[in-house]
């Protein structure tokens, strides 16, 4: 039961990253790829109807994390107090950047919100990457089951780590590159003409970087936490995960220049999902490793009661089916290339 909830949370986080990832990435290339007002409106129309729904996956994953692993929620959210607060500010700014831009059609107003939207998207991508890096690297948990991390200490991996050190900066940059590519594939899929071409060009540019950073980060992860390979040695079936990652990288490289936008986007989604699943597989059953392993938070010492989890499984299944239904419906309503001249943006 507890393991099941571990994978449910992991799957929800992966869904969030795949979905909100593309609108974050679209925000990252927004200022450069979309040059005219008309092109910018196209990008916003491509993500406008769905960004809020995508972001709900983050909220829902947070809610489910709270429900299933209250102790983990309590420790991690208070320990990552500062970065989480900054993420919240960025999410606020990004939301109003997207939504308030269209209200007044003057260049000054719109330029301002364009920059707000794009810069907050870029910073969010970096922060999410760094957050994942923190979870993989481990945090200074002590016997109370709590910790607190400042934003940075000396960028080394000492006993008192900061949110940002060389490793998490690496994962942050990697997340930015990966999500930029992901967003570029999405924009290429949803738009045409110059804008679509430029988005494809961006994706092409990102690919070598992405490949390079994927390799580096795998080596770096093994270097700082060799024990991370344990689960893969015990359950060799897990080795399928890196294989999917590599195949999806190859598929991106092949599909993008051929103009197979949908395939490239699917490959990028697979890449993101399996990178995260790979991390979750390596960590399991630990949910938040401590720098000193005797204080690791695992699914066993953080979960809610079995009764609560069983009850939750009933309503979770029901609501997840409903949610997937809404998403399929909404994405079908807005399928195809973006056309301007209908409604907002």
């Amino acid at each position: 039961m507890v393991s099941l909830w571990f994978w449910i949370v992991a799957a929800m986080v992966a869904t969030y990253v795949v979905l909100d990832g593309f609108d974050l990435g679209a925000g990252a290339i927004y200022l450069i790829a979309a040059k005219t007002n008309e092109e910018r409106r196209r990008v916003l129309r491509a993500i406008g109807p769905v960004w809020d729904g995508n972001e709900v996956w983050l909220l829902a994953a947070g809610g489910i994390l709270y429900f299933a692993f209250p102790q983990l929620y309590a420790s991690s959210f208070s320990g990552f107090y500062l970065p989480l607060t900054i993420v919240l500010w960025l999410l606020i700014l990004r939301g109003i950047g997207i939504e308030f831009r269209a209200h007044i059609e003057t260049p000054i107003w719109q330029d301002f919100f364009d920059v707000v939207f794009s810069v907050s998207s870029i910073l969010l991508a970096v922060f999410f990457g760094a957050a994942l890096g923190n979870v993989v690297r481990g945090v200074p948990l002590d016997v109370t089951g709590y910790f607190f991390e400042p934003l940075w200490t000396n960028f080394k991996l000492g006993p008192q780590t900061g949110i940002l050190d060389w490793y998490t900066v690496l994962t942050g940059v990697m997340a930015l590159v990966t999500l930029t590519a992901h967003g570029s594939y999405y924009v290429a899929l949803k738009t045409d003409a110059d804008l679509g071409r430029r988005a494809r060009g961006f994706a092409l540019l990102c690919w070598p970087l992405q490949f390079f950073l994927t390799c580096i980060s795998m080596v770096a992860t093994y270097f700082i936490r060799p024990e991370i390979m344990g689960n893969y040695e015990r359950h060799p079936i897990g080795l399928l995960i890196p294989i999917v990652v590599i195949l999806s990288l190859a598929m991106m490289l092949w599909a993008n220049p051929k103009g197979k936008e949908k395939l490239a986007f699917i490959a990028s989604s697979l890449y993101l999902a399996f990178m995260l699943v790979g991390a979750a597989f390596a960590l399991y059953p630990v949910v938040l490793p401590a720098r000193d392993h005797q204080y690791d938070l695992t699914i066993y010492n953080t979960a809610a009661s079995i009764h609560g989890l069983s009850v939750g499984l009933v309503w979770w299944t029901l609501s997840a089916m409903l949610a997937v239904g809404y998403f399929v419906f909404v994405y079908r309503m807005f399928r195809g290339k973006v056309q301007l001249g209908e409604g907002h943006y």
Partner: protein
Amino acid sequence: MGLALLIVVLKTIGLRRNDPVYHEAARFWGRIFGINFVLGVVTGIPMEFQFGTNWSHFSRFAGGVIGQTLGMEGMFAFFLESAFLGLFLYGEKRLSARAHWLSAVAVFVGSWLSGYFIIATDAFMQHPVGYFTASDGSLQLSGFWDFVLNPWAGWQYAHNMSGAAITGSFIMTAVGAFYLLSGKWTTHGRIFVKAGVIVGCVFSVLQIFPTGDRQGKMVSDQQPVTLAAMEGLFQGQTGAPLVIVGQPDEKEGKIDNPIEVPGMLSMLTYKRWNANVRGLDAFPRQDWPDNIPLLYYSYHIMVGLGTFFVAVMVVSLFLLWRGRLFNARWMLWILMLAAPFPYIANTAGWMTAELGRQPWLVYGLMRTEAGYSTMVSAGNGMFTLLGFMGIYMVLGILGLFLIRREIENGPLAGTGFASNLHPEVK
């Protein structure tokens, strides 16, 4: 949330009568709702996070129970609301009129559902039920339905949602009154005033009876010390008076300059004029709410404004019925100027509920001082508090600015949200 209800009402009338004016009205309020909704979404996200960031000991203690409702809120309400808001705002051309109406209903249902899950969470903090204490000291769920259908939640929810409906209707009425007084868009202004007054009158009455009355009864049964502090009753007595106006003096334990109705508090609480009501003196000092004057004033402001709402709405409805409201400029002035009061009343109501629960975080089980994140230093807390205050202030100014602009542009303007809803009704 109140506006979501009113938009559904307007859209339903528009669909039924096939009247373009109602569609324009729904579109206009849809635009304002859109601005509000964006602000609500972005300011709402921090609240869920703060359970963990700022109240981690509390989350660890009670998460096994309230995680249920918070998880369900995300899964059932947020998905529904956000998915269909996108359709409501962007899907006008791709949907039929009926499907578009349905998406408005879905947004309404989603937002009211979300309200219930939050109230049920708060109700657990006010009146914990359906839990057991596990071996590690944390609370865990024992009865799902006991917890979700907490009797406290039912009345609190009704009271809260009625407050939301009052807010929506006062705003709609005020904009209508503004249009009528300035002689612009009077056709729409009349619809706004009419819809606002009818809905507002119904909910103003419901707000006091039965929802407010039942809520007061629950407080007097379950949290008698809170009731004594709210009413400023320092000494318990038989035939306790109801203080209408007066300033509590905590040091001396009395009310200055009181205007009281003798025996009324006994009557309201126990339905007998000479019943004995326990005062603050019946409870140990450490269980008194921390800030008695603030609690007292919050409660009195809420009740005073609630009474004012009933008076305004009943008189307006009478004038409407006699067909004189649209020409009664004095009444339109009152309706226009009353717009901010429901916001004050709602805030005061929440302050009453939360200050009244002090010094408890979970009533009778965990004190507030035991629940906050001790590992977050005061300096870090201050940094983020100031940051949030700054951002929220900017958001507030932006929101007011954009809404004022919509009101100025009027119901026929074609810019912004939902500008070409229903192309078939032009």
